[in-house]
């Protein structure tokens, strides 16, 4: 589904990603872990097409299509969803209206009929249950005055409505208390499907207790330095990132 080859990207002239290779197949959940500043969020934003992130080299294919030449909205319509680390507030626009506009522009693009207000409401109510979201949040302006937990719920709720093929969830677990984390994790688990892939970007192993990934990758200084199964996350929890850093330095020394 997603194929990343030798991806190098920069922000404001500074190279952050130094060559990423990653393959994600339908039905898989990949966790990308790493310390602050390792390039995790940059990778998420590059995949979603955020302006200001320059591609230095490499390629990214999504279902065979060259993702890097597509506009962000076209990537979304093609089935890529980014769960934001810091969901953005849009004053004056109701959550309901925003999401309905989003869903209908995606549907329209796929040649599907647009949903009217009634049908959309029914769908929204159904999906809200997944993350135990309060209905009153639908009538409020997008993320405005939402608590941290409400914002993150809203992200997963949006994902549930938009039904992406590939969901990239950027630190969805940050700033959540344990109850909210459990609710959100169970929402995400309910959205796992054979034809859907997910990339979880996270600092901590904590989230992975609830959402068990197929693969775990460790990102250090813009490179994936180690990939493994779910047990890699546990190892990291125990030893921290330090031992990998040392190991990487040692390997580099040997190679050069």
């Amino acid at each position, binding site marked *: 589904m997603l194929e990343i080859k030798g991806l190098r990207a920069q922000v404001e002239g500074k190279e952050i990603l130094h060559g990423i290779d990653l393959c994600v197949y339908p039905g898989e959940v990949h966790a990308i872990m790493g310390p602050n500043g390792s390039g995790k969020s940059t990778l998420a934003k590059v995949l979603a097409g955020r302006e200001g992130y320059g591609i230095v080299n490499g390629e990214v294919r999504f279902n065979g299509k060259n993702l890097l030449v597509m506009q962000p*909205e076209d990537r979304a319509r093609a089935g890529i969803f980014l769960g934001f680390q810091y969901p953005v507030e849009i004053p004056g626009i109701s959550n309901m209206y925003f999401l309905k506009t989003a869903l209908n522009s995606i549907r329209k693009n796929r040649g599907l009929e647009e949903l009217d207000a009634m049908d959309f409401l029914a769908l929204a109510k159904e999906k809200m249950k997944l993350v135990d979201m309060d209905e009153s949040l639908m009538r409020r302006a997008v993320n405005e005055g939402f608590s941290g937990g409400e914002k993150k719920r809203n992200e997963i709720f949006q994902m549930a409505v938009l039904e992406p093929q590939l969901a990239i969830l950027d630190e969805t677990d940050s700033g959540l208390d344990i109850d909210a984390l459990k609710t959100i994790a169970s929402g995400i688990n309910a959205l796992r499907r054979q034809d859907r892939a997910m990339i979880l970007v996270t600092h901590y192993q904590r989230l992975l207790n609830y959402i068990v990934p197929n693969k775990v990758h460790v990102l250090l200084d813009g490179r994936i330095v180690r990939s493994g199964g779910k047990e890699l996350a546990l190892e990291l929890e125990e030893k921290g990132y330090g031992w990998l850093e040392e190991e990487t330095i040692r390997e580099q020394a040997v190679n050069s």
Partner: protein
Amino acid sequence: MSANSNIEELANREYKYGFVTDIETDTIPRGLNEEIIRLISAKKNEPEFMLDWRLKAYRHWQTMKDPTWANVHFEPINYQDICYYAAPKMKSKPKSLDEVDPELLATYEKLGIPLRERDLLAGVAVDAVFDSISVATTFKEKLAELGIIFCSFSEAVQNHPELVRRYLGDVVPFTDNLFAALNSAVFSDGSFCYIPKGVRCPMELSTYFRINAASTGQFERTLIIADEGSYVSYLEGCTAPMRDENQLHAAVVELIAHDNAQIKYSTVQNWYPGDKNGKGGIFNFVTKRGKCKGVNSKISWTQVETGSAITWKYPSCILMGDNSIGEFYSVALTNNYQQADTGTKMIHMGKNTRSTIVSKGISAGHGQNTYRGMVKILKNADNARNYSRCDSLLLSDKCGAHTFPYIEVKNSTALMEHEASTSKIGEDQLFYCQQRGISSEAAVSMIVNGFCKEVFKELPMEFAVEAQKLLGVSLEGCVG
């Protein structure tokens, strides 16, 4: 396409109403002197008191200078180079729409303002002002059954001189400012409206102003009187052809609300703004003021200002009656080289008077947007309350937003609140929308629309739609 180029595209959309109607026009020579004023008055067959008033205004005008305090810049206006009267040629004032020149009807049709009653928006009566005169007023008879007078100003002068005499200049005296004095001297037509005691006007009343002739100024006057316990909602719309020279529009609007009366006045102003290099466009120098004369009266201004090369306009409320309420809701959009200096004055005189000001300024391109507002609490205005909020949204790196709030309080029981914010349209917001599948153009519209929501929700439905369209925004779900 990048977010910035989309914003520019949105801001540079073509002006749709720039066409010229080819119609025979009765114009008088350019220039301003007593002869011209006598000529205008004679053309309108006015009673003596009107001519006297005009001449007084003219003489006062001669002693005045262009106001220079506003944050707008333009070459001095040559008042002798303007034509002060232009009217489509008609043998006599048409008695019904069937007698109105089809060319004129077609013009309004093209502007989306059908004048034939069967095509009309249900519940909106229209007075259509073309250059210097009113060409048609719809639903007049139906309103007359309730005792409501809704007609052109010229007709009011002929048929209701006692009302005109009593109220003309009551709220905006000709000594008020240079443009008000000029208007008082040369105004040619406009709308007149009187709502009798206890009547709730069953439909929206509206005036649609169209400047067509070249080198012509439009100087109309609107006078609305809401007698005790009455209610009226009034709408005003405006467009003009695209021309290279600047045209002057200097209107005066006076509102009077007696005891327990309410007037809601909404404007969607879309005069030609000039081209993208700032050439041409209308100078919209307008004096609008309402007087809450009676107890418990209320005047509410809502304006959406998207057109004009320069806007100079401060719809204000004089809160004389105890417990009276004044409101001002405004959206002003400036792009390319447009300049707007707009805001309001709330003068609290009565006890327990309240006022609310919500101003939203949007600047794009090289647009300069200024909010200028004054809240004045006089000595006897016990327990006066004011809430002001002005927000500015910047859509480019070259535009500007300025805020000048003036507050003058002479009574210690007053309670004032003022909030202000300036924000740049966020790349984060745009990206968030795009990431959800919404095109960047639709996203800009959505964000701007959300920004203006507090004001749009004050507009009557039909107008809200037009306002939304003007900002290139889809209305669905956002206003209500």
